[in-house]
Structures are given as C-alpha cells and as structure tokens.
C-alpha cells in the first residue's frame, strides 16, 4: 500500500466507530425529536419547553455550571502549577488527586450524601463537638441554597481532576527557556504565571474548558443523589421523560436542546481562547 492512503486507513476504524455509535444514533434521536409519525414538527419541543419545570431545570443547570466550572478552573490551575514545581513524589500526588476520577458519579453523589444527610458524618461530627444540639436536615427543600452548595462541592471534588490532568500535560509542554529568560529580567512568580504560563497554556485550557463545560451541562447522578426531586436539572428531566413517562420523543427533544447549549458554549470557548495563527510553542 502506498503511503498516500496510509493516514486514511489508520483513521478508518475510528471513523467507522463514530459513524456506528455516534452519528447513526444521533440521526435516530434527531428524527425522534422532530417527527411524530409523519412530517416534521416542533410539537415535542413545545411540549418540553412549556412544562413548568423546564425553566427551573434550565436555570439550575446553568447556575451550577457557572458556579462550578470557574472554581474548578482556578483549582486545577493551582494544582497543576504546584505539581509542576514538585521534584519528588510528583506521581504519587497526581495519583491521589485523580482518585475521584475513578469513582462513578453516582457513587460520588452517595459519598457526599453520607456526609450531608441528617444522620450523616457532618451532623454527627458537629453533634460530637457540641456545635449543635440536634442533627439538622441540610438537604431539605427549605434550604435550596444548601442543596446547591452540596451539589457544587461534590461536583468540584469529583471532576476537578479531569481539568488537572489536561493542564498538567499542557504545562509540561511549555519550554523552560521562557521562564529562565523571565527570571533574568526579574519577573515575579505571579508575572511569570500570567505572562508565560497562561498564554502558552491556551490550547490545553481550551480542551479542558470545553470538556468540563459540556460535562457540567450533563450533570445528573450527583444531583439525583443529593438534590432528590427538589433540584431539577435538564439531564434529570430527560431521564424522567425517557423512563418514567416512556416518551422518547420528548426526551430526544430535550437532549437536542442540551446539545445545542453545549455547541454554543463550545464555540464561545473556541473563539475566546483561540490561538492566533502562527503562534505555536
């Protein structure tokens, strides 16, 4: 075989895989969302957006993403710079920090539920220390802020590592010479971080942010475990349409809405963090 065709042959398996398990189901979902029997209609979209919980779940999903992702970004940057400076035990620290990645999100939700519930660890600890007289129900419908906080905490704990891994790899790619030159000119550590690390980390930041933001719109199991029925999010509504109501069309329509939101945010991130032409490391 000539080398001309080799690249195409090499990407063929991935292409086939994507077509079979992404594009084809995607086409089916689209057809299900728009078509009810004959012709194209927007009925299912009208149905899901007119449901009284839709604005609430959209708002909850957005707020959660807006609260969680910036904190995760800051944390991941901090952790990545720290790891990068370490001489010894770098791998060990990295492994420990990425442990939450290996835990399924439902399990993570249940871990945090065990902390926050009425007879959970937090209550028994505060009771033991004499801070409170009797256990309080943190995760009740009367304290929506507390539920939000608990979900945000669980999400930050669970999914910061995915950004961390990408950023650590990205920082490793930045040549040492830039830092040495900066030091010669007397740049402070903060200046070096702002003027060298951040700009040169753009491609990795882009990847990490896109991945994390898209995942934030798909938050589901952690919310289900901690928020019960009082913190509806888009993914939970999709699940309810598909499995509680057996309404595949509505579930597909809502899934396409989530996809639309994800695409918009991906484009924004791509645009904001674009790497100027010719500017490579």
């Amino acid at each position, binding site marked *: 075989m000539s080398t001309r065709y080799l690249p195409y042959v090499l990407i063929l398996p991935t292409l086939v895989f994507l077509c079979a398990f992404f594009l084809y189901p995607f086409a089916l979902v689209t057809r299900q969302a728009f078509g009810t029997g004959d012709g194209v209609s927007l009925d299912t979209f009208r149905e899901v957006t007119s449901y*009284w*919980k839709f604005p609430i779940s959209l708002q909850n999903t957005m707020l959660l993403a807006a609260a969680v992702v910036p904190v995760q970004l800051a944390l991941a940057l901090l952790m990545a710079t720290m790891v990068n400076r370490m001489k010894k035990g770098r791998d060990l620290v990295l492994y420990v920090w990425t442990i939450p990645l290996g835990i399924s999100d439902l399990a993570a939700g249940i871990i945090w*539920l065990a902390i926050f*519930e*009425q*007879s959970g660890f937090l209550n028994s600890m505060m009771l033991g220390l004499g801070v409170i007289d*009797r256990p309080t*129900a943190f*995760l*009740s*419908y*009367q304290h929506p802020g507390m539920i939000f906080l608990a979900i945000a905490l669980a999400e930050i704990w669970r999914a910061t590592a995915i950004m961390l891994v990408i950023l650590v790899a990205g920082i490793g790619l930045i040549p040492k010479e830039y830092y040495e030159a900066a030091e010669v000119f007397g740049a402070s550590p903060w200046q070096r971080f702002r003027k060298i690390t951040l700009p040169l980390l753009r491609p990795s930041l882009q990847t990490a942010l896109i991945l994390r933001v898209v995942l934030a719109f798909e938050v589901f199991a952690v919310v*289900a475990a901690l928020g*019960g*029925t*009082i913190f509806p999010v888009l993914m*939970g509504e999709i699940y*309810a349409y*598909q*499995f*509680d*109501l*057996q*309404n595949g069309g509505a579930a597909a329509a809502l899934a396409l809405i989530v996809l639309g939101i994800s695409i918009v945010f991906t484009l924004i991130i791509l645009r904001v963090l674009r790497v100027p032409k010719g500017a490579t490391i």
Partner: protein
Amino acid sequence: MTVFTKFLCASSGIALALLGTAAQADVVFWSTQARPAEEAQAMRDNVLAGFSGTVDYQPNEDGPWLTRLQAELQAGSGSIGVLGALHGGFSALDPDTLVDLDDLGVASSSDSFNALARLGTDNMQYVPWMQASYIMAANREALQYLPAGADLNALSYDQLIEWAAAVQAAVGEPKFGFPAGPDGLRHRYFQGYLYPSYTDGVVRTFASDEAVAAWEMFRRLWAHTNPASTNFNFMQEQLLSGDAWIVWDHSSRLANAFNERPDDFVAFPAPAGPTGRGFMPVLAGLAIPTTAPDQDAARALVQYLLQPETQIATLRATNFFPVVEVELPGDLPPSVQAAGAAIAAMSGAPDANPGLLPAGLGGKGGDFNRIFIDSFERIVLAGQDIRTVLDDQRPRLAAIMQETGAPCWAPDAPSEGACPVE
C-alpha cells in the same frame, strides 16, 4: 486429519453441544421485581431451584426492562421466556405482544385481580403473581404520644396529624416520614390513599372541593413531616436510622426494619378520612412475550410459580403475599407477620375504601403519576394555591384520560368510555 485438528473438531463439537443444551434448558425470567441482591439470590436459591428446568433469573430496573423487551418484540425474536412486573408495567405494553394465558389452568383467587390481568381485553394477558400493599409503620418510641382515645388500628387522619404534632413537640423535630424522593412511591399515596379517603374517587374528583380539603389536610401533616423527606425513597432506612418515627410506604420497602429490629417497630393500617379508609393493593404478574423461545417451558414456569408451596417460598424471598389460597406457616419472618396483620386489618376495616391500581392507561401511566407528583410539588413544596394548581392540572389529566379512553376504576363511579374529570 492430524491429532490437533481432531482435538479441535471434538472440542468445538462439545462446545456447540453445550451451547445447544444451555439455550434449550434456560428459561430467561426477566423481572422488575425482587431486584435487591439478597432478594434476587433468594429467588434463585429458594424459589426457582425447585423448578424442573433451569431458570436464568434476571431482575432489572423498569427502564432497561422495558427497553430490552421492546427491542426483542421489534426484532420479532428474543431470548426472554417469562416476564415478571407490576400491573403498571404490563399495562404499558401492547396486549398483542403477550401470549394469552387463559388455558394455563392457574389464576388468582381474587376476581378483581384476574380482571385487571386482562388489561382491558377479553383474555388473560398476564397471570397475577404476588401482591402487597402500602401500610403505616411506627417506632415504638412514638406510641406514647398517641392522642388519648386513639386506636392504632383505626386512626383517622386528624388523629395522625395530632399524633405527629405531639411527637414533634416532645422531641423537638418533625418525625413523620414520607417517601417523596425520586424513587419514592409518593404518587401511589395520593392515588390510593389521600384521594379515596377524602373524595371517594381519583379521576372524577381530582379538582373537586373535597380534593382541596384533602390537600389542605396533607399540608397540615407536612408541617410535622421531616423536611428531608424529599430525599427519602425506602422508608425502612429512615425507620432504622431514627430520622422518621411514623412512616407510610410499600410493605416490602419497610421489611428490613422489621426483620432487623422486630421489637422496635409496629405496623398498622392507613388512617381514614371523611370518605373511608383508602388503601391500594399492589399487584405483580407473570406474562409470556410472543417472542419467547420456548413457550412450553415458559408456561411450565408460570404454572410452577403459582403453586401454593412456591407462593410461600416467594413470600419469604420477596415479602410479597400469595395471590392464591394458601395456609400461611407460623414461622414467617417478622416483616411478613407485621405487614400481613396490618394489611388484613386495613382491608377488613368496616370503613375500608380500596382504590384499585390505575387501569387502561397504557403507556400514559407515567404521565398520570406525574399529574399527582407535580400537584404535590407545587401545592406542598412550593406552597402554591391549591385551587389554582388543581384547576391548572385538570385539563392535563382530562387529556390523558381522553387520549387513552380509560374507563373509571374504583373508587370512582363507573363510566361509559373515558373517565371524566369533573
């Protein structure tokens, strides 16, 4: 032929033969019931082990259960032999996809169960398999706060509220528990307990003035309910942890509490309202899909599961009661004894007002439940005006009834055609 190829042929022959017998002998029992690991194991070891053939018992969540079944039905061929599910699971299916089971020679001893099992057709679409109900349970600690003159086996809703208030006043926190979590069976409470007890109906009376009174009562009860209830799914957990002292739930979702600490808890009938003591039976059934690979083996398995001895073994394994006449042995687990007595007291009460399971809703069962769950979330959790919410939900309920054409079921008065929302 070399020795090696001979060996290859022989081993592949053996493998093929093994595959063949395995495929022939195993009846796949695809069930939404007895899902927890211990219950599934008890089904395999103590219930199905006595069957003449071998059974591959596979319990699964409702969603995946339906997804695989529908995939097999659409493909026109499948591996599932016997289906086990609640009445609601079967009523969501097209009756044509289930084998008629009239000639099987087994049925429930209850005519109303057998009528439900026809799914609106003239033939048995599934065979009633086992039954349960929703009951009340309380921590014995709470009994000292019972209002004066109240009989635990004949409580009224006013007495329940008084009791829950007294407990709250005494211990300083609300101790009534209600399964309002995502997997909780809250909708069954509204359909089978609240509405029958206050309005003597479910669909017809959905937005009546009596319904407003019912929701007002529930709001008063909610004031003494543990606010974390929106995370409670199986009330046995909160009974055991002490987060709730007085609870309502499915008898098999309370079983662990009674089995772990039988001396700490009591079971008792649901309270009564102005129109009687509303309660709802739970019915699970067995069916055979038209795509079952070995119909005879599947039929034999259904017959086996309806035998009195098997029914008692099933009771021990799952805490679901027999649907045929059986002599209950004396050495049953504490949960079964407690629940059995409470259910008997409830159905035998002079003011008993049983509400049947929703029937004839087909695939709209989930939408029907959502009407009640949404009403609860808006009225009780969000504090919206009861009349406004009920009037807002009424056309949605009417649309579901119109679309499915489901006739009224007890305690609603019978209807010609679709059950009207009055």
